[in-house]
Structure formats: C-alpha cells, structure tokens
C-alpha cells in the first residue's frame, strides 16, 4: 500500500468513527424525544405533558372496550402489563383495532387523568401466519390450559 493510499484509508476510517460516535452521543441525548409514544407506566409516573398533544401506546385491555350505541364514542383502557390508562375517542377505529391489540393514540390528557384521543392508530405485530395455523395454535393453547386446570 502506498503512503497516499494509506492516508486516504485512515481518513475514511476516522470519518466513519467520528460520525458514528457523534451520532451515538446525539441519539443518547435525544433518547426520550425519539420515542413515538408514552407507555401507560410513563403516563402514570406523570412524564406525559399536560395540556398539549402527545401519543400514548399500549395493548387494549381485554373486556375494556365500551361503545356508545347512539354515537361513534368509544372508550377503552390501554395497558403495558404494569399500568392501565383510560382512553376516550370519537370516530372510526382502524381495521386492526381489537382487544389485546397494540395501538397508538394521539390526544390530550384530560382532567381526570384519561386520554382524550383525536386519532387512533393500530400497531401490528411482527408475526405472519395463515389463519389455519393461528387457529391451530389457539386450539392447542386452550387444550393445554384445560389440561392444566384438570390437574
């Protein structure tokens, strides 16, 4: 390797290292701000901003969805297995919205500590399978649970 080539190689390595380190530092400093949403635990700890729009994310709690038969009003609870928050929303929910589904809502914190949502987005998970496989998995799980109860 000629000295000139070596210099350029060193330059390239130095640039990559320098940029990587500064990016790592910047991202660590910004960490919380890059999160798309606050989890119910973060909201319970009072980390969510008062009086301005923010996003909350979590799983829709089983059996918590209550629809008003007269209007599009709907309320449900979001949990992250540790804490739960109440969400109120008026509008059409996305296709993937269901109990046990991960979702993200945008809204403001109400006076009673619930989230008044203006937008509801559904997250989908990283699992892909045909419906038959999902059905088989579910049946197997139920069978296992039934067996466990018997014993």
């Amino acid at each position, binding site marked *: 390797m000629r000295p000139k080539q070596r210099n350029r190689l060193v330059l390239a390595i130095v640039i990559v290292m320098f*940029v990587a380190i500064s990016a790592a530092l910047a991202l660590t400093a910004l960490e919380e701000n890059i999160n798309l949403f606050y*989890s119910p635990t973060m909201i319970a700890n009072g980390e969510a901003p008062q009086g301005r729009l923010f996003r909350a994310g979590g799983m829709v709690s089983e059996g918590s969805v209550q629809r008003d038969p007269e209007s599009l009003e709907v309320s449900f609870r979001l949990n992250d297995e540790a804490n739960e928050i109440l969400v109120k929303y008026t509008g059409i929910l996305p296709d993937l919205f269901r109990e046990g589904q991960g979702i993200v809502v945008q809204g403001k914190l109400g006076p009673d500590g619930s989230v008044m949502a203006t937008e509801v*987005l559904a997250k989908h998970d990283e699992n*892909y399978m045909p419906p*038959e496989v*999902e*059905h088989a998995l579910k049946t197997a799980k139920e069978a296992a649970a039934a067996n466990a109860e018997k014993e």
Partner: protein
Amino acid sequence: MSIIPNWLYRLSSPKNFYRFAGTASNWCGWIALFLFVIGLYYGLINSPPDYQQGDTTRIMYVHVPAAWMSMFVYMVMAISAAVGMIWRIKASTAFANASAPIGAMFTALALATGMLWGKPMWGTYWVWDARLTSELILLFLYLGYMALQSAIDDRETAARATAILALVGMVNIPIIHYSVEWWNTLHQGATVTKLDKPSIHISMLIPLLIMAVAFKFYYLSNVFRRARCEMLEREQDKLWVRELLGENGSE
C-alpha cells in the same frame, strides 16, 4: 502486499470491467426475471393470507425486499465509493455512482408501498416514528449523493466528495435497522432479520426470500449496465473504446 487481491485489480481495469459487466448484467437480468415470475406467483397467488391482515399482507412481498435492498445497496455504494477513493479505482467509483439511483428507487418503493400498507392497517399513511423517518433520511442521502456527484465536474474531486458523503451516511444504516428496538415506534419489530427464529410461517417466508433474491439480481443486472455506461463515457478518448467502436462498425 495489497489488501485488494490481484484478480480483482485485473478485473477493475476499465476494459476488463466493461466486458465482465456486460456479461454479468445479462445473466443477472435473466435470473432476476425467472425469480420474479416464481416469487410473484407464490407471493400473490399461491401463499396463504395472514391471520390478522388478510390479503393486505401480500404487499409485504414487495415492501420488505425493497426495504432490505435500500439498506444493502447503500452499504455496497458506500464501500465501493470508499475503495474507489482510497485506491483510485475508476471501476469501483463507477459502481458506486451506478448504485445510487437504483438504491434511491428501492428506498422510494419501500416508502411508497409502506404508506399504502400503513393506511389500511395502521390507519395512517405516515407517522414521524424513528423507522419511517430514518428511511426517509436514507432517500435524501441517495439524492444528495447523486446531486453532489453531478455538481462537481472534476471526476477525482467528485469521487472524493461523494465517498465522504456516503461514508458519513453509513451511520444511518444501523439506526434504520435497530430503530424498532431502540425506540417506541408504530412500525413493528423485525420478523426475519433477527437472531431468533423468524416469526413468519414457512409458507410465507419462502416466497419472501425468493423475492429478496430476485431483487438482488435485478440490482446487479442494473448496476452493471449503468456502471458499464459510465466506464465508456469516462474512457471515451482511450484506445480500447475506439477499438470497440471500430469492431462493432458503429462509426
């Protein structure tokens, strides 16, 4: 003692590269076409719908390979631009320059199909979450590379400037990949590219992987063709180009 093996040095001479790229482009093109036909048939017709998303999930067979390629092409582009700058290998710089528009196209495709997928599933075309934003930055990096390369007339200077830009932008690649783990995002986590077992059923994984390989060959076919053109343009005054033109009787 050289880092670059001898056969690669020989291949990188403009004349040899031109010959090799022509043959390679044709072969890769036919392989890509063959795999596209199989992959699209399996993906769009012969694979099962998803348990949650139904048939909408089929957009995955284009979206996911396009997104993988957007990152893969960037790495190839950055490394070959750096090699071209360090060792002053024209073929390597030409390869990097040829990669940029193709990579930009894959990135735009990943973003567009992602938006079309996001609307029915998430309920929105776009959110500023870490994954989507970093992928958009990747598109701008490609466009910046192309703009910088065409803005500088002197080829040596252009090669140095673009190589540095490409190397700086490389930091974005791990950010795109790990964004879904490091931060809360609307985009879901990795399905296939993780150390764990892929969380996708085999009947959907196979067409996905066929499509991924098809995209790779499509890229190779295109990049060789483009790099070949750039080589011809750079070397237009050289003897071998004139001989080539004479041979083909086009002058």
